[in-house]
């Protein structure tokens, strides 16, 4: 009975919690096929992370803690995954569709001529062993049902926050096997020079709550100092810092932005939500001074609850919001931050 492999993504020697979602999805497959739900953990701390994976349902684990696997590089990771797939012929390989998960699974599926479905948001096993999945297409404007046959290993990358992790069971154990790396350092062309981590920010794609702001963030009532250069940029940056971030801090939220805010230089591109930015799916999305253009909607329409704060009562964002507040964000957001601080006892 063939195994279901789940790649546990790590960063700096710790598992990314979204990987437990992939184990949750993997459990659906393993239950049907009766194979071992196997966590693949590569790099620093692999063995400890494998034990953590056991708590989230992995019954087996394959680990490889080698210097070549410290920090993600496609070449050594894909070579190792490909070797494991060729040797053990698992039924499926799953990972969350993060930047790394996408390229890793696609590369190994190509190496082994296997079928792959990317960025799926639900899946179902058919009687013949094929898997039918649903994925968003056309910037989330339609859904596409896709299937992968049962002939070989089925590769699937999973949209973040689309699958539920299993409840953690403390004390659960997994049978751990050690694997040797597939490449030695001199066989790897890519060298990591450095990693410039974004400190102290919550990752947008994992976030349960997102507070976003748009072009209107520049309408800050504060006066820009005389030496500020571009006054609008100063006002907008100050707005993100002194109004949006405090609300995000109270909620443990990530900060997002519209493209208009990014293009104007108010906030770095990494924060952009939308068709040419990130696709997010939080429980709560608070859009401040964002009109709700269709390209912005493309990135956030699957949010569970949408709150819109906009001074224009006719802004399109109100058409997709659950709660609408007409008014100036510079008055409403500080009031909301104070109120939530009280309610949440912070």
């Amino acid at each position, binding site marked *: 009975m063939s195994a279901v492999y789940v790649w546990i993504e790590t960063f700096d020697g710790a598992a990314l919690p979204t990987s437990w979602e992939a184990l949750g999805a993997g459990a659906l497959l393993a239950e049907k096929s009766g194979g071992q739900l196997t966590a693949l953990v590569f790099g620093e701390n692999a063995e400890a992370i494998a034990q953590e994976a056991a708590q989230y349902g992995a019954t087996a684990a394959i680990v490889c803690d080698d210097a070549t696997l410290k920090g993600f590089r496609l070449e050594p990771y894909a070579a190792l995954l490909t070797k494991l797939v060729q040797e053990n012929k698992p039924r499926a390989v799953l990972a969350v569709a993060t930047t790394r998960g996408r390229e890793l699974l696609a590369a190994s599926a190509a190496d082994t001529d296997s079928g792959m479905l990317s960025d799926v948001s639900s899946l179902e096993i058919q009687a013949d062993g094929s898997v039918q999945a649903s994925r968003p297409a056309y910037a989330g404007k339609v859904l596409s049902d896709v299937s992968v046959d049962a002939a070989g290993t089925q590769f699937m990358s999973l949209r973040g926050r689309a699958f539920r992790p299993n409840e953690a069971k403390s004390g659960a154990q997994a049978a751990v096997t050690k694997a040797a790396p597939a490449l030695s350092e001199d066989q790897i062309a890519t060298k990591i020079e450095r990693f410039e981590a974004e400190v102290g920010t919550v990752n947008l794609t994992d976030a349960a709550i997102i507070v976003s702001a748009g072009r209107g963030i520049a309408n800050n009532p504060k006066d820009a100092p005389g030496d500020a250069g571009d006054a609008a940029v100063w006002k907008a940056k100050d707005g993100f810092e002194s109004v949006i971030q405090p609300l995000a801090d109270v909620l443990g939220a990530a900060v997002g932005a519209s493209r208009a805010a990014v293009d104007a230089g108010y906030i770095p591109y990494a924060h952009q939500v939308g068709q040419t930015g990130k696709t997010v799916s939080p429980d709560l999305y608070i859009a401040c001074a964002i009109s709700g253009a269709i390209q912005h909607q493309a990135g956030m329409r699957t949010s569970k609850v949408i709150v819109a704060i906009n001074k224009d009562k006719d802004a399109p964002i109100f058409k997709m919001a659950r709660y609408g507040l007409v008014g100036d964000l510079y008055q*409403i957001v500080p009031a909301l931050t104070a109120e*939530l601080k009280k309610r949440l006892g912070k």
Partner: protein
Amino acid sequence: MHVVVFTRSTPDTAAKVEVGANGKVTWGDAATVVNPWDEYALEEGIQQAKNAGGKATVIAMGAEMHNEALKHSLAMGLDAAIRIEDAALDTNDGLAYATAAAAAVQKLGDVSLVICGKESVDVGTDQHLYQMARKLGWTLLAYVSKILEVDYAAGTIKVERLLEQGKQIVTSKLPAVITVMKDINEPRYPSFIGIRKASKAEIPVWSLADLGVTLPAAHTRVVAFKNLPVRDTQVEMIEGTPEEQAATLADRLLQEKVL
């Protein structure tokens, strides 16, 4: 030095896209545009070719509608365009596209760098881009937000990649396939002369036979397209002073259990 950029035509981003009664995706009479992510790839292709005194070729795979993206690319300033069309590609399998794309790059023979946009906004996929790199056996550097150094003679490249937790700076070897992010450049608009020249261009079409390649058996297929479930769009407008609005919203959010 020869750089190749892949692109395709996608419905205008403002178009209303839906699934028609025949199960096909339609966007009414809305225009198609160059896949928005590819504008950055095309711009980078032009700049890389210019800096190295080389040539930039743009390739699209698919039916004639993709000529529009190719003409836009030529109008921007790419040197040559090729379209790949073959009924066998209609399987819509990622590996099939990757195999054909890799064969096209190999047929050109002298390519050092392939540049792609981050993904196609229509089919919403990027898998085939990474798979093309593997089929070529080349270095893959995805999510590139900056090319820091590139030396075509020495065959080395240094880039900054934008990942979830920050920026990874890596060096690697050419030839390479890279996918680029919005931050990398400011795409230019086609010039008037460029548009005139492009409108007259004859774009060669290559079949799989021309590429001398047979596709691997497709393991995946598109079963159907579906419209989105109707969203409960009942909006509750919360009124009052900012303090009252804040208090009511806090009540609602606590009831919704999203905090």
